[in-house]
């Protein structure tokens, strides 16, 4: 019974993640993969994503410190980063990645820097929200069936 409010809260959190555009359909795909064999699948994947992408963020930061920018390298990193982000459904982060790549391709150093800052911001926000979400989810117990946001 106590879980009901928690469950409700969890559902609200989840919905807001979608509504605010932080997550997209792909996240639901992950949720649907979760089953008895892997009850914490989504959380595990997301944790893995943040671990791995942190490395890429660091690489990109270092690359952005050098002058002039190595756009190819930056684009390469961002391509990887985008791929990961897309696979977990990180919508906003993905959008920022795309923007960054465009700046890279056009050789717009300033644009790259700005886009990267924005990207880091979104990335940080998503991370915090998902951490809170999963923490609550663990307390709440097994999630109900994944449902698409209204």
């Amino acid at each position, binding site marked *: 019974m106590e879980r009901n409010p928690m469950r409700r809260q969890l559902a609200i959190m989840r919905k807001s993640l979608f509504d605010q555009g932080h997550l997209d359909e792909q996240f639901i*795909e992950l949720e*649907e993969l979760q*089953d008895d064999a892997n009850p914490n699948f989504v959380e595990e*994947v997301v944790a*893995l994503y943040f671990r*791995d992408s942190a490395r890429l963020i660091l690489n990109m930061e270092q690359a952005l410190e050098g002058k002039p920018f190595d756009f190819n390298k930056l684009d390469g990193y961002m391509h*990887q980063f985008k*791929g990961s982000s*897309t696979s977990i459904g990180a919508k906003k982060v993905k959008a920022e990645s795309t923007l960054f790549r465009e700046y890279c391709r056009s050789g717009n150093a300033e644009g790259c820097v700005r886009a990267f800052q924005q990207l880091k911001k979104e990335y940080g926000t998503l991370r915090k929200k998902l951490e809170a979400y999963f923490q609550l989810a663990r307390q709440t117990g097994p999630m109900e069936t994944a449902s698409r946001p209204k």
Partner: protein
Amino acid sequence: MNSSIGKAYMSTASSSAGRKAGDAAAAAAAAADQFPAGLRVLVVDDDPTCLMILEKMLRTCLYEVTKCNRAETALSMLRENKNGFDVVISDVHMPDMDGFKLLEHIGLEMDLPVIMMSADDGKHVVMKGVTHGACDYLIKPVRIEALKNIWQHVVRKRKNEWKDFEQSGSVEEGDRQLKQSEDADYSSSANEGNWKSSKRRKDDEDETDERDDTSSLKKPRVVWSVELHQQFVAAVNQLGIDKAVPKKILELMNVPGLTRENVASHLQKYRLYLRRLSGVSQHPGNLNNSFMSPQEATFGPLSSLSGLDLQTLAATGQLPAQSLVTLQSSGLGRPTGKSGIPMPLIDQRNIFSFENPKLRFGEGQQQHVNNNKQMNLLHGIPTTMEPKQLAGLHHGAQSMGNMNMQVASHGSQSSQNNPLLMQMAQPQARGQMLNDSSLGHAPRLLSPMGQPMLSNGIAANVPTRNGIQENIRAPSYNPVPQTSSMLNFPMNHASELPGNSYPLGSTPGISSLTPKVAFREDVNSDIKGSVGFLPSYDIFNDLDHHKPQNWELQNVGMTFDASQHSNSLQGNLNHAQSVLVQQGFSSGQMNGQNRSATVVSKTMFSSGDSTGHVNAQNGNQPLNSLLVDGTVRVKSETPTNLYPDDFGQEDLMSALLKQQDVIAPAEHEFDFDGYSLDNIPV
């Protein structure tokens, strides 16, 4: 809905009785159609997140998943276990290796369906996937629905293989299928061996058509027929392997409809092949496996070739000693049930029978899918076997030709063999066949027999090889037997080697081969080398992938030829040598054999030096090593690549000769010195 579908899967998997009972249709379907379930998928992606998700998705589809985050790891996994996977899914952008490169490697070596994936959905990238031969392209993020149907690619590929097989009568398809079932063989051999054997064979089979098609947007997999390959090799040699760029090669080849891309990918294979030759480690066992695998099915009977058979064949006099050896080695080498052995012999034959380049035993061979595959190797025999070499071969071939005939007439000792032999005849797959068969047997033969092994071995092989035996006779052929290259060799020479044209198809003589081999015994005492033939099996396998292999064999064969005629070394020595040589070149595995081979070949060359190309060979160490090794691995001892820069026959010859030197110490007690080539009764 994913969830519902996923649930369906899960429920099936979880086997909730109630659910299953309730959902009769689903349960029935799940139970009845087991096939997609259990599909062995290898997924390669450097992104751990994607990898984890894909793995989960594939597991949900009830597939057997192996994940890998590095392309190199994936490739070695595939090589170690060629038949361990049904389909590969790979990301395009990877740090250690470009996804398309991996795609090519897999296509060449394992011929598995490969699905590319990328977050990049640009038209160019997708097109690249198509042109590189990917059977599908998935855009990330990949949804489970997209993965659920990937099994169709596996089915399609198998279906096509069989279709080709039937059409061309080559064993390719069959091989492929067989290959699938016979992992062991393939996996054990060096990757190279199998790599493209099946693929190659398939390609070879459909040379013309594919070629035309490939020039269009379609998959650029041109079918590299023997002739085409010969042209290619000639062009490469003309330019020099280091300077051979696709554009120039294309220009030199001047083949309408051939695109630069076709040449580029073929060149890559060729290079891989060469590399493999030079670096192939000898796997005694592999020999048998690689080649044999496809052939195994067919060769089975071949293995039954006994020394007697070979002897008989040899006796018939047609089989050059070498071929006998090869045959033996190949056939005997593979004691295993796998038909393997037949191949080697067959290859030889093919080589010889290459006279009729497109001699597709395949027709008859169809049954021996394996053979075809093998054969392809042969026909890959580079053009290096230029006319002069061919001429040399001819000499041998002539005699061989007779032998072949004889062999053929023997009737199919081993029904299977014949097909193999047939295959051998086919310029294309021959190489492969021989390798397998010979390889398989060769080693065996030699070992137990010891010296006489060669002859005996050959004899053993001979039976199956009937056709091959003949080849043995012809100095030129012998080398070929083991490695598919040998087979091809004849092909190239097509006209030149009269002997070559052994009607491999007539393989019934396979059994006859053995007899031939037997006669080699006279000479052989040192034919130990025949054992070495086995290595060629692998070579062939490898060759299959790369036409190059064939080349090697061819050269080898050539060299032998030259010497053969002149010397009556036809006896075992010749066989051994020629066989070894052939093998040596291609696979280098002929380690054990190589030695003998080298020795033999030396003798042969020196004595016979009729064609002169024998001498030239000195540079081709690989042969020696190959021969000596007994393992199919071409590379075993070849200090130099089998394919020295100019892979011409000269190279082979020199390589052979060199090998001989190297191999001399070989376990075989070929006492070539004492050999009087003249004694070899051809």
